[in-house]
């Protein structure tokens, strides 16, 4: 069978194509879910948006202009038609292009997440290795206690502590962390110092503990003992035998945390007054601004799916054994 042959010859490529197709279907399903979810929420856009100053006439006018009086299914498909052509429509509330606004907010979110990741990932893995090296000795214990303490505190509390000491008491950090278009890179970096520090503290422990556990479990396995017994040098043993097996779980945890940094940091955004995607979506859900909610939801889903896919692919690349499932 040629199909099988192709699969056997390019296992990685096949996998990527399969995953991509699956992701598209997942995204479609997500868009239906979000649309249905917002539809099911009590209250429509016009009355929620105008609040106590609304009159029935104004509500009817807004609904008619936005086509809210049409049936749900036809509204979904007209939205989908636009989205497939890359047009996410305009926000019902601000009447601005969703793509443009989302682009700016997503840029902000990625900027913050990116910087947090650049610091947190090497730090976590480095600390994990350190604590393996000093296993059950003082440095290991200190690293563990501090990182566990950081993960045990809710993220908003860490944020408030940092604000209290570095912005209010010592006055050395910038607060609020609001970034805007006309801001220079250096200014931006200064503005995000505190939220970055908060995020690093929040995600550090998870990745660090996983690194430590993965390396420890591999190091105590039989084949590492064999490698040592057959006279391989420590470095060779780690690179050839230990690393490929330990990498997969580490990559997975890193990917999960990266996804969290992009889509799960609403609270940190609120505390530091940072204009990211999370806050944008919450604002939109509050007034049932469907085009914005849809766009945000899809982007969040896409980020999760892509990062998970990337993690799987990297794990397979790192460890050839996974390429041939039994």
């Amino acid at each position: 069978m040629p199909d099988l042959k192709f699969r056997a010859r390019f296992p990685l490529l096949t996998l990527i194509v399969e995953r991509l197709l699956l992701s598209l279907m997942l995204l479609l399903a997500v868009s239906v879910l979000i649309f249905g979810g917002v539809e099911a929420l009590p209250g429509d856009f016009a009355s929620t948006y105008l609040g106590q100053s609304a009159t029935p006439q104004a509500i009817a006018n807004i609904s008619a202009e936005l086509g809210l009086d049409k049936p749900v299914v036809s509204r979904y498909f007209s939205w989908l038609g636009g989205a497939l052509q890359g047009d996410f429509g305009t926000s019902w509330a601000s009447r601005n292009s969703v793509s443009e606004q989302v682009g700016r907010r997503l840029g902000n979110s990625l900027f913050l997440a990116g910087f947090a990741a650049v610091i947190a990932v090497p730090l976590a893995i480095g600390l994990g290795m350190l604590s393996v090296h000093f296993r059950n000795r003082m440095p290991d214990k200190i690293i563990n206690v501090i990182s566990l303490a950081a993960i045990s505190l809710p993220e908003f509390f860490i944020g408030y502590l940092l604000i209290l000491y570095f912005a209010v008491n010592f006055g050395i950090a910038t607060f609020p962390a609001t970034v805007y278009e006309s801001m220079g890179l250096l200014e931006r970096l200064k503005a995000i110092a505190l939220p970055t520090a908060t995020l690093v503290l929040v995600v550090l422990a998870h990745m660090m503990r996983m690194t430590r556990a993965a390396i420890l479990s591999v190091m105590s396995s039989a084949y590492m003992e064999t490698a040592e017994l057959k006279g391989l040098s420590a470095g060779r043993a780690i690179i050839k035998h230990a690393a490929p097996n330990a990498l997969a779980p580490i990559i997975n945890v890193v990917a999960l945390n990266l996804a969290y940094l992009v889509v799960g940091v609403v609270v940190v955004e609120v505390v530091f007054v940072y204009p990211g995607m999370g806050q944008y979506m919450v604002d939109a859900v509050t007034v049932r601004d469907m085009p914005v909610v849809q766009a945000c939801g899809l982007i969040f889903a896409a980020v999760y799916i892509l990062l998970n896919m990337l993690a799987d692919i990297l794990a397979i690349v790192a460890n050839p054994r996974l390429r041939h499932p039994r």
Partner: protein
Amino acid sequence: MSDFTKYLAGRVTAGGMNRREFMGRSMAAGLTLAAASQLFDTSANAQQPKKGGHLKLGLEGGAATDSIDPAKATSQVMFTAVRTWGDTLVETHPQTRAPLPSLAESWAPSPDATVWTFKIRKGVKFHDGKDMTTDDVVATLKRHSDSKTESGAAGVLKSIKSIENKGGDLVVTLVSGNADLPQIFTDYHLVIQPDGGVDKPTAGIGTGPYKVTSFEPGVRMTFEKNANDWRSDRGFVQTVEMITMNDATARIAALSSGQVNFINRVDPKTVSLLKRSPNVELLTTAGGGHYVFIMHCDKAPFDNNDLRMALKYAIDREEMVKRILGGYGKVGNDFPINDTYALFPEGIEQRTYDPEKAKFHFKKSGHSGSVLLRTSEVAFPGAVDASVLFQQSAKKAGIDIEIKREPGDGYWSNVWNVQPFSASYWGSRATQDQFYSGAYLSTADWNDTRFKNEKFDKLLISARGELDERKRKDMYREMAVMVRDEGGTILPMFNDFVNGATKQVKGYVNDIGNDMSNGYLASRVWLDA
């Protein structure tokens, strides 16, 4: 010194009035020549407003969904923003709420108050350099009141029959007489835009003291001084920056670290902490906003006035003001008007917590079992705590209140104005007429207590067209007593506006009209170096 003279003195201090004008108006208000002269000198020397500087505000109540179109301005941030870049036809006096000229120089009603003629100020330019004309005014008012309107001001403009430009004057004809039309035109949605903003509602171009320089909804808005401003008594700082900060703690941190000059909505629970900060000043203003527990007068068991009375006597107002507002507020008397309104009916007996009377009415009502109160954190700040306090004080009167905590999301569409007994809040309105017409008239859109009383409706309509203030005040008194003794509103407290500023900020005017100096904050204050 009377409030009005105080206000005039403030205008002098703010640089907006010369000696001649001040003397004339003060003496008209009953001050002697010598006294007025002396007052002018002290006011003029006390605090000269400093020009220039960058004013940074950290404000609650903005969202990514904000629109710069004044018709859609609902959030706190957009309310202040609109006041900063635009002007309405009429302004209100900060202490008495009497109408003052703005883009309209003067006005006069027909004897039955159905036809109003407004003289429109000449020589005022929009930010884009075009002259502001009566046609712009007509177009603006039409956009907010015609049948296609999507405006938040549509409700207050309902009674307008026609809007015309007659020989350069604005002539407004009403369906029925309304003595409050000038006050209605102070509504912040009604800022005058070029061509009424019909083509470009979101251009952000007006006649205000500041021009919009950038706008990111829910993030930040910046302004710069309008060099061609038609008034010289406002707009002292060079640039203004409004940052949306919806987190209460973030606002306090930003203010106490001096990174913003002003914040709104200080949580009464944290006021004491903020007071400890040496460079911070607390700015509190009485307002007409209030927190309520509302009962539907037409649904059992609340269709029984004795049960309503029992619950009104079973609430401890003093304690609520102390615990929920941290003392920053005043007790309510079960009608929605307080002394921040013109023609406030004085001398109506204050209802107090009286378990005995509550017991008496409860027994008389014949109701047995508990009553279900629905509440939520979003109903008003501290609503859940207030409901529990209510439950405790009612218990002592033998009334069992069962509390159901509802989710915040959807509270305004599922619970408020739907369920028979719930917690809620109201903001202030420009006049008593506006308030009663919006929430107590039988046919009102938001009659959230289902208070339907023919006599009340008739009084409201006739008071609206009454130009004699004495007669009008008596009518409002009668209406207040009706709502207090027969209505479905339990009104324990009026909340103050609590804001905070760094000590650099000078010239803040306590304006009873609305929060943040009635939205004029940015144009009224200056920064002392």
